[in-house]
């Protein structure tokens, strides 16, 4: 599989093209259906846990539905971070795939795993800066998108 990123480069030669086709044809394909099914199950499981936690905070702490959302997602983040620290998260994610990486669990895992990985390079140049090597672009583009949406909202709604 070739990447979409393609700077001004000389095109593939005939031999390279033929080889690329051969590789594409013969490459063992990921089990798409199984992966999707597992992602569906695990993603659903995370959502169910999130719902249970929301209800828990709503009923036990007498919070409104809106208020209960924040502690519920914080708890999910905590669980994902703890599992990452215990070295379990990556083993589950090998099967769960997008089921764990798309919800907030994936974001937590990307930050904690990076922070753990670069602990040995020190607090400032290691943990502090390298913590965002994976999550950084999510934050950047999240903020940019939010800004643009906010701008559209401000122009068209008001």
């Amino acid at each position, binding site marked *: 599989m070739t990447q979409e990123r393609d700077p001004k480069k000389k095109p593939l030669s005939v031999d*390279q093209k033929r080889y690329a086709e051969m590789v594409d044809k013969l490459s063992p394909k990921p089990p798409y259906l199984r992966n999707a099914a597992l992602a569906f199950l695990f993603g659903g499981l995370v959502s169910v846990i999130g719902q249970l936690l929301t209800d828990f905070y709503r009923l036990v702490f007498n919070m409104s539905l809106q208020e209960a959302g924040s502690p519920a997602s914080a708890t999910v983040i905590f669980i994902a971070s703890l599992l990452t620290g215990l070295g379990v998260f990556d083993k589950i994610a090998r099967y769960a*795939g997008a089921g764990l990486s798309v919800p907030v669990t994936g974001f937590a895992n990307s930050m904690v795993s990076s922070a753990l990985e670069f602990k040995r390079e020190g607090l400032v140049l290691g943990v502090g800066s390298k913590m965002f*090597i994976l999550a950084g672009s999510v934050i950047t583009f999240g903020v940019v998108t939010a800004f643009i949406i906010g701008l559209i909202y401000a122009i068209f709604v008001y």
Partner: protein
Amino acid sequence: MAVKVGNQTWQLMRPPVILETATVAGPLEGEGPLHADYDSIYADPVAGESSFEAAEREMMLNACFTALQKAGLAPSNIDVFLAGDLLNQTITSGFSAQELKIPYLGIYGACSSSAESLIIAAALVEAGFARLVLAAVSSHNSSAERQYRYPTEYGVHRKPTAQWTVTGAGAALVAAPDVAGRLDAAGRPGTGGRPDAAGRARTEASGASGAASTGTPGGSGTLPQITHVTIGKVNDFGIKDPLNMGAAMAPGAVDTLINHFADTGRGPDYYDLIATGDLGSFGHELVVRLAAERGGFTLSDNYQDCGVLIYDFDKQDVHAGGSGCACSALVTFGHLYHRMQRGELKRVLLCATGSLHSPTSVQQGNNIPVIAHAVSLEMTSQR
């Protein structure tokens, strides 16, 4: 003196021998099918050190010292230390050389470093610049993973073509044939033998004495000789995906094999075993196809890949197989070296492949440049 035959091959007229080898393996490799061939197996990937990088260093040093100990030599007996690894600026090799205090030449051929170090060692010995050369390579799954891909605890689906970087290190002592003979006469411990089934170097210190070795004059008949080496060219086969190294490197291996056979006039049948370095199961399949298509020769059961041999695919979740400098080193310096000494294999061709990319070159959209070197190892006791 060595002669150049054909375009890319050197024939060694007084073939240097591989006097002794040592391999140390990480925990996953230690559970693999070749566990009996390793000199030590680490239960902990950090090897009691403070970081994965320090652990890799410890492994390379352990392999070097074990090889020296098995040969009954001290670092001061060695003329040159050649080493390579996968980390930026080859720090494992540099720091190991600092501890060994042997004149050092660092090499980098990515995963082909095992063959590259043997080639340079053989050339230095043949030319008379060195009598004894210590060649070592290492790789570590976690230190490579964090440099080339993701943090180790990051959870993702891995592609079926992805390979698992082998944790471990291998060292080989390359010696001039007469040096090997003289060491034999001096009663070098463990000559010609291999560690027992447990694969522990320590247990054989009081084992077979040099006098027991029955070889041609010089005793080198019982040791694998480096008879031909083929130096590879760097090629771009148009593959960009670093998670499909088997596909990236397979045509490189075939290119070098074609040149090796053309230069030496040999065919694949000449060898009892042709082993590519770390192409994995998919790369293995591609090599067989490309060999027929581009080289016009058939690779049959005598062609295997170290990345396939090193793991048990049914029990170990390693996708397409092993990769890394240590992959070919552990299999060749451990398993294959022992099989040669037991007389099960007489002629082995190691064709170690390497991808000369970096994360930066991949991110900037460059294709993966590929190299492969071939080393012909032969037991020629009946001369």
